[in-house]
């Protein structure tokens, strides 16, 4: 990673945006543009290490755009560009010398719809590790990753069966296992349970609470109750602005901004 010195985060409004000491990730006046459209407007906030941070807001508020900017997934979208800075530790994520592939090894991502490879359960984990240059014991890595993703007991006897034979919830946990096999520092999740039933959702939620011991987790969710249940910090976005960012208990019990109050209470969105 490229070494740069990150200036401290200057928050727009200290009463609404919580200061995170020693954040693992820092947005500083981050704006994200699709052509001339500013989808994310000058966001400044820090992300706490080994915690779950939820980003919530109505459709089109910029939450997924912000999430995807963290491991430069937006690079793949034509006309999308970022102004301001995002610092991962002290490295500017958008430094032109930074290798996005290397960055994504440190910052993994799980998507809304489970997207296992058309391979066996085993290969779904081993293949990604191999092409990323993993030289260790693959069997051990597969077992360890599946155990961490709370999937091992359900699949240990059918590791070489197709991943598509798994249920939706199991497929999503496999995708999480695949992401954590690379030992990332940060795990990004874009509505990871929106396609799952309540039981599978509950399993993923319990899993995330376990995983935060090892990883920093940032989750975008439409499900406010989910954000309330599992996250430690919540950021509320509206039309590209970061309206309020605080501990989840504060956001859900006594938010400061009227717009947050209305959204949390389900009065719009």
């Amino acid at each position: 990673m490229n070494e740069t010195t990150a200036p401290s985060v200057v928050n727009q409004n200290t009463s609404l945006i919580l200061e995170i000491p020693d954040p693992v990730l820092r947005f500083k006046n981050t704006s994200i543009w699709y052509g001339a459209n500013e989808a994310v407007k000058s966001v400044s906030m820090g992300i706490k290490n080994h915690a779950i941070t939820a980003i919530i807001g109505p459709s089109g508020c910029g939450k997924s755009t912000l999430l995807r900017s963290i491991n430069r997934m937006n690079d793949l979208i034509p006309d999308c560009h970022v102004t301001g800075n995002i610092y991962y530790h002290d490295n500017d994520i958008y430094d032109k010398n930074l290798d996005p592939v290397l960055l994504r090894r440190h910052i993994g991502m799980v998507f809304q719809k489970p997207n296992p490879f058309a391979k066996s359960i085993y290969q779904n984990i081993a293949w990604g590790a191999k092409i990323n240059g993993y030289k260790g014991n693959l069997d051990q890595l597969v077992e360890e990753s599946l155990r961490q993703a709370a999937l091992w007991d359900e699949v240990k006897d059918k590791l070489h069966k197709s991943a598509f034979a798994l249920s939706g919830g199991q497929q999503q946990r496999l995708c999480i296992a695949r992401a954590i096999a690379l030992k990332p520092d940060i795990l990004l999740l874009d509505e990871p349970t929106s396609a799952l039933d309540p039981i599978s959702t509950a399993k993923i939620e319990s899993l995330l609470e376990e995983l935060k011991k090892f990883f920093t987790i940032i989750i975008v969710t439409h499900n406010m109750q989910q954000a309330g249940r599992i996250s430690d910090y919540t950021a509320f976005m509206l039309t590209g602005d970061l309206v309020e960012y605080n501990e989840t208990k504060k956001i859900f019990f006594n938010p400061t901004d009227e717009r947050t109050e209305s959204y949390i209470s389900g009065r719009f969105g």
Partner: protein
Amino acid sequence: MTRQHLAQELDSIRSQVLSMSLLIVENLRKARECVINSDPSLISEIKRTDLEIDALQLSIEDSVTMLIATQQPAARDLREMVALIKILDNLERIGDYAVHFAKASKILAEDPFPRPLDRLIRMSQTCETMLDEAIKAYLNQNESLAVASAEKDDVIDRDHKAFLNEILSLMVDNPARAGQAFKLIQTSTYLERLGDHVTNITEAIVFIITGEHKELNA
């Protein structure tokens, strides 16, 4: 605006809380009338209304519980529902005290009290005013009115102490009246506690509005 169902249900709950409070205020007024006239004839009516008040408490509590279970309220809505359980509990106790207050008229009817009961009457009027203001503060989500209501608890406490002194001096002068005096002391204590229950309600209202637990009139 979404969550129309939640908004409608909350409005309906607020109306029922208002109905319950009006019944209590009316009972307090009737109890005062009983004491002023040393006439216990309204007691059975007051008791019947108290049963209505108790039933309303349970019914509103069920509505609140159902709303929490089905609508998953958050932020201010959630605070209101949690605070409502406390408010209803305190209202129910206030209803009981209104009945106890009315019962003082029985002992006064049996044996007219030789001294004026102005302080006791004034205490009950202050209680009615406090409750009236507290309910208005709840319905209008008015923090300063809730605080103003709670401040009147000091007036009740002062009247209670002064009334106790009056009764104690009477007991010294006329030990034969100790039994009746003791019951009047109990009645005054009920009204003093009634003021405390209204203060609890005002604290719950401030909690709904601000999200903070503030001790009013500690």
